[in-house]
């Protein structure tokens, strides 16, 4: 009999980035990279476990914006183009590296990975990866949960319950449509919880969500089992708190597994390393060097000296780290079981894109972990939150504390001198959306107005993506994030003015609909 449970949560998210007005667009490659390096490898791991008869449980959120992009025909086609280029490039590398066997081995492996990714994308999943995840859920191995419509940061949307609720409603409806059933759980964007959010979740039939450690640990009254059991809000929705120890072992930039010197180095990419004339067709059309995904070195040290990557050693490391993680969870479960007198549950959530993209060996680590948990020990059992709640229905009622998993534990990342300027605009747009919705609350409006209202909702939601404020804070593609906020507020404002004036430019509206085509079932009445 097990002494405790482990719930691994993978949060897969990308902001909605789709630019049909350009032939190619740099930020769209985030999606293509994630497909090749994270989503397909994860599907392979889970399907491999399944076919090998290894019992395991994993929980995943696929955000509505990510799902929209995975199912979009233009982006699917562009992915095929993108992976085609990588297949070509890795093929050329095989020729170029004829005299360097260590690098040649790696080029051959990349060529295999890319051709395999293309094959699976096209032939196995019919271009729609969501079908792969859905099937795994139907097979009982995976619990799919949702996230807010456009990954909006709830604590800073604090002046209107209806505006928060609409994000949740939009997500739940899409989830039902794409995955065939209503989600029982949700991953709040950035684990951003604020007073009242749980009531909104309850309205949509959601039974559980997650917060960072202090969200549960600082609940009122004190949680008897700390973070090792969920608490239940007075509204009836359960909350699971993130476990710090299992987080540190993976996330920490200082002591976490991904920093091991034998693992693949992210930065030594041939897009930067190789001669310009050779690599030119595979980098940005303007000649700016970018990551290709083909990398030949291991981390080696903190200096610029990097050795050639050895996949065998790295694979051994992944196995060793998986064993170490499992060992720690075993010890943790056994100890806590003694202290609590109840089987503890350890919640280990991670961004899905860590696995395979930032941490190349991540999927291998997960594979080893699930196999070792299944065969090498008996103290810990992997479980989904829904399974846990049905086996452990009696839990303490307590109100969680507002919190997030962002730096410093609250809202500072998204509310700072670099991004605070967006909120007057987001709040005004929210107020105006409510105003519009109340004008047509009986649902009586002509089709054109309805289209405009629905698109206004989409534009508002796009402006509310927490990604823009996050990017401004971390300073990566800041200009792009600023443009996106201005663009969507600008489009929203024009739609608002046109709807109120009763004069909607149909041609322009159609262009907007074709471009920002996420959440096709969006209905402005979600805001009622």
């Amino acid at each position, binding site marked *: 009999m097990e002494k405790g449970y482990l719930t691994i949560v993978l949060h897969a998210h*990308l902001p909605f980035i789709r630019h049909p007005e350009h*032939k190619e667009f740099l930020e769209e490659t985030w999606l293509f990279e994630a497909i090749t390096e994270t989503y397909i490898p994860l599907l392979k791991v889970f399907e491999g476990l399944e076919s090998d008869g290894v019992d395991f449980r994993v929980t995943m959120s696929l955000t509505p914006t990510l799902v929209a992009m995975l199912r979009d025909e*233009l982006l699917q086609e*562009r992915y*095929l*183009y993108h992976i*085609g280029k990588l297949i070509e490039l890795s093929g050329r590398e095989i*020729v170029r*590296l*004829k*005299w*360097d066997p260590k690098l040649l081995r790696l080029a051959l492996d990349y060529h295999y990975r890319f051709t395999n990714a293309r094959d699976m994308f*096209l032939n196995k999943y*019919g*271009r729609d990866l969501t079908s792969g995840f859905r099937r795994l859920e139907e097979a009982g191995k995976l619990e799919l949960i949702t996230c807010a419509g456009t990954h909006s940061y709830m604590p800073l949307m*604090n*002046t209107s319950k209806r505006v928060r609720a609409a994000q949740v409603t939009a997500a739940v409806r899409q989830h039902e449509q794409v995955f065939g059933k209503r989600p029982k759980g949700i991953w709040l964007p950035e684990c951003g919880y604020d007073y009242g959010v749980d009531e909104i979740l309850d309205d949509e039939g959601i039974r559980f969500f997650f917060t*960072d*450690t*202090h969200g549960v640990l*600082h*609940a009122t*009254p*004190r*949680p*008897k089992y700390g973070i090792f059991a969920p608490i239940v809000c007075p509204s009836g929705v359960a909350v699971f708190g993130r476990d*710090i*120890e299992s987080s540190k072992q993976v*996330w920490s*930039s*200082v002591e976490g597994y991904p920093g091991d*010197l034998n693992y693949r180095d992210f930065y030594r990419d041939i897009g930067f*390393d190789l*001669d310009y004339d050779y690599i030119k*067709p595979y980098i940005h059309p303007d000649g700016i060097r970018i990551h290709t995904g083909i990398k030949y070195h291991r981390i080696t040290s*903190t*200096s*610029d000296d990097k050795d050639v990557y050895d996949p065998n050693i790295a694979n051994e490391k992944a196995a060793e780290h998986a064993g170490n993680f499992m060992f720690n969870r075993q010890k943790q479960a056994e*100890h806590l079981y003694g*202290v609590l007198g109840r089987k503890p549950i350890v919640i280990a959530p991670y*961004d899905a894109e*860590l696995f395979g993209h*930032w941490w190349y060996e991540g999927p291998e680590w997960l594979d080893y972990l699930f196999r070792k948990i299944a065969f090498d020990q008996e103290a810990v059992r992997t479980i989904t939150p829904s399974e846990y709640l049905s086996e452990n229905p009696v839990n303490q009622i*307590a109100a969680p*504390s*507002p919190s997030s998993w962002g*730096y*410093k*534990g*609250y809202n*500072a990342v998204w*509310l700072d001198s670099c991004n605070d300027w967006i909120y*007057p*605009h987001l709040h005004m747009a929210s107020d105006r959306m409510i105003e519009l919705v109340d004008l047509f609350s009986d649902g009586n409006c002509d089709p054109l107005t309805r289209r405009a209202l629905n698109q206004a909702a989409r534009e508002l939601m796009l402006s509310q993506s927490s*990604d823009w404020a996050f990017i401004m804070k*971390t300073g*990566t593609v800041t200009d792009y994030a600023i443009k996106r906020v201005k*663009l969507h507020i600008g*489009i929203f404002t024009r739609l608002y003015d046109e709807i109120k004036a009763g004069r909607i430019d149909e041609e322009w509206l159609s262009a907007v609909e074709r*471009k920002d085509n996420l959440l096709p079932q969006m209905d402005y009445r979600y805001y009622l």
Partner: protein
Amino acid sequence: MPEKKKEKSVKAGAAKKNVRKSAAAGKTTRKKAAPGTAKTGKTTPRPPRQKPEPTASELSLDQVSRQYGSPGAEYRVVEEIPDLPDSYGKTRVVALMVDPDWIHVFWEVTDEDLKKAKQALGKWFESAARHLRVKRVGGSDDDIEVLEQFYIEVGEQVRNWYLRVPHHDAAYQVDIGLLTTNGDYFMLASSNVLRIPRNGMSDVIDEKWTSVAKGYFEKIYALSGGFQVGMGSLQLQEKMAEFLRGEVSSGALGSFALGSGAVGAARERSFWLRVGAELIIYGATDPRAKVTLLGEPLKLRNDGTFSVRFALPDGTRDIPIAAESPDGVEEREIDIKVERTTDEKKPVFK
């Protein structure tokens, strides 16, 4: 959906004629006359450099554009990214929590509402200064009770503020208004009520969910927070506060869009130099010849030229390039020998 067929390129030897269509691009490339050495006795002229044929992947980008709509007006929803307005013509104040120690407030005051203030205040208007009135409130939503308050002066051009929260586990409401020199406050707008949580373990204990064991909660807190068991609650709180300012969060590695999160060891950016060497072997022959390089068949371009690029590690390499005439009668060979050594010198500090 079946994958798109790759465009076939026309076989090089198919036609001796000069003109050959390049399938995808729709361009015509002139094929030079087949080198005829015997007739004139002159050496075969080097063919002019040709633009490489578009590869399969380049083709499909054009195809993608054609199929889904080439970039154009219909997808451009705005010609320029619109500027956000400076103000919205509505007086209001909004309060947002940064963390339990800081609140962010933003506001707008319309000229109209200032005029109303002027009318109401009369002679006291000119000397009145704009102030935020920060109120700690209690009671219910419908019956707000002010427990304490203080004022912060803000300039007329100022539109937002970060203010320090005096008490955790409290609710605040912030007004924007004018404070006259005789101490009256004319409120222009009032914010939402903002609840600030406690920044630590709750002091409310549910009798049904507790333990009589001494130091039980401290133990649970330590285990939950990943701290050493045995610390007192004050020390634990401090540890937790430290942790919340620390590194374990999505911010440490960042979500995908971050792009800069360094996995693993932070990169030391000291001075560095990296050098690689590659070898390009290129040449030309009769387009119908059979060419080998290092004994392996080498593909010629349609004009009979070829080039191959290799990473060149240290060592000596013999590279024979051989060509057999189209009629199979004659063989030519050129051998190239290349040696690379690398001498990485110790850094010199001037």
